[in-house]
């Protein structure tokens, strides 16, 4: 899932200040799961903005709508029917959602209401952690299902460094040392020998070698 958090309300108010008819657009997927931009959060933000506008005597219409996925065109296209009512969209999608909507409606300013954070997991209620950087060449097998590129602050492929204490990372004691987890898990599976190898420098071309990445699959194309 892509995680995000809502921007401070003052920052959002500054960005929408020039506009009089605004559509607050939620997204029902990842950002709903992380309680940042789903139907509920969109309603709450729209309501807070209306209230702030009223208190300040500003004449502005803020309406809300949530679609299943802002990042998939077929869910965005139906907005065409209502878009002429608005002079701006306040998107509660992730960065991909904001850009997909903007791409579909070139004449309408699309303003981000969220700060997009990371690809991660829901660990508990109200608790999300980063677990994948999308390197394009998954090495989880070698490291017992724990990604050192994501979860080690130094991205060491040949760790651990000398800094962990009581199994916690020196950079943030709330975070477990990825290398302690790797060693513990590989030991449990009798697979510690996977660490005998010196892993060579990572091939980052699969992540950032050619600018923004794309996947093209002819078997999926009509």
């Amino acid at each position, binding site marked *: 899932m892509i995680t995000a958090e809502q921007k401070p309300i003052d920052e959002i108010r500054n960005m929408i200040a020039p506009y009089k008819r605004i559509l607050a657009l939620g997204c029902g997927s990842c950002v709903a799961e992380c309680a940042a931009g789903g139907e509920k959060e969109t309603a709450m933000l729209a309501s807070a903005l209306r209230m702030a506008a009223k208190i300040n005597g500003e004449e502005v219409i803020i309406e809300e709508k949530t679609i299943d996925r802002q990042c998939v065109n077929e869910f965005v296209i139906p907005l065409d029917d209502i878009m002429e009512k608005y002079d701006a969209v306040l998107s509660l999608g992730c960065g991909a959602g904001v850009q997909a909507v903007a791409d579909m409606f070139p004449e309408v300013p699309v303003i981000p209401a969220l700060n997009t954070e990371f690809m991660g997991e829901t660990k508990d209620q109200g608790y999300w952690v980063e677990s994948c950087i999308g390197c394009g060449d998954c090495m989880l097998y070698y490291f017992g299902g724990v990604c050192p590129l994501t979860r080690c602050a*130094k991205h060491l*492929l*040949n760790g651990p*460094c*000398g800094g962990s204490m*009581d199994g916690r990372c*020196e950079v943030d004691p709330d975070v477990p040392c990825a290398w*302690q987890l790797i060693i513990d898990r590989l030991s449990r599976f009798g697979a510690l020998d996977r660490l005998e190898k*010196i*892993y060579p420098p990572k091939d980052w071309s699969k992540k950032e070698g050619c600018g923004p990445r794309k996947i093209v699959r002819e078997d999926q194309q009509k």
Partner: protein
Amino acid sequence: MSEYKAGSNLEKVLKAGHFAFTGECGPPQGANIELLKEKAGHLKGCVDAVNVTDNQTAVVRMSSWAASLVLLQEGLEPNFQMVCRDRNRLAIQSDILGVYTHGIRNMLCLSGDHQKFGDHPESKNVFDIDSMQLINTVKTMRDDGKFLNGKDIDVPPRLFIGAASNPFAEPFDFRVYRLAKKIEAGADFVQTQCIYNMDRFREFMKRAVDMGLHEKCYLLAGVTPMKSVGMARYMAKQVPGMEVPESLIKRLKGAGKGKVAEEGIKFAIEQIHEFEEMEGVAGVHLMAIEWEHRVPEIAERAGVLPRPQV
């Protein structure tokens, strides 16, 4: 072809079987070349090589290669340190060529402290490669004459390759295997983290010797004299991967007012003497942090002077 891998003074001293004694010098937080020369001057004649730190603790200082060149001009042999935090593989390889061209012959390969602990915590770290891969990069450049991409180097750099090892970090059982990996990656010599827990270090060395690591690589034991009880407490509590036994803190405290530093030096000298006798230890790396002026006295009292001329 020379009998040496790089022909540095440090390599010659170690190869001749002498007990090596290396020092350390942190570059100034500015362009204060006079301060650098003064600090380095204290070490002249007392050590076989001087580690020149690379933005240590992630605090900006004069670059380690530039400070290394100053030391070279002053007649000292630098052990140029490089961390992976601030450079990608292109900058790393070009800096290696650069320092070799200017006469640097020792290089210590490190991952580097995380920027969170330094004076630019908002910076972006690089860590394109890690310390293990850096060691292997220098070795590949030297022995195979190849860059990381496999292309030939026009006059390969010949450096004596150093690595660091922390015998006290977690998980303890894995530490000696990581040392073995660094040696396999290409380390010619290893300098350890500051040692205070002698029991644990004896155990670590026993395991290293059992694995025959001391025959493949020169292992230098890290010594940092304690200047005060406060420093000992700070090292014990605030520095990750550092182990300071309560008995040492007690001993320093027991020395009484105005005598703690002397007690710290006494302990360091006792350590040096034990390391001279310890199987597998090829030398001592003395990190007298901001205490360079005390190095001649420590070296004298430890009986490691004069330094061998090879």
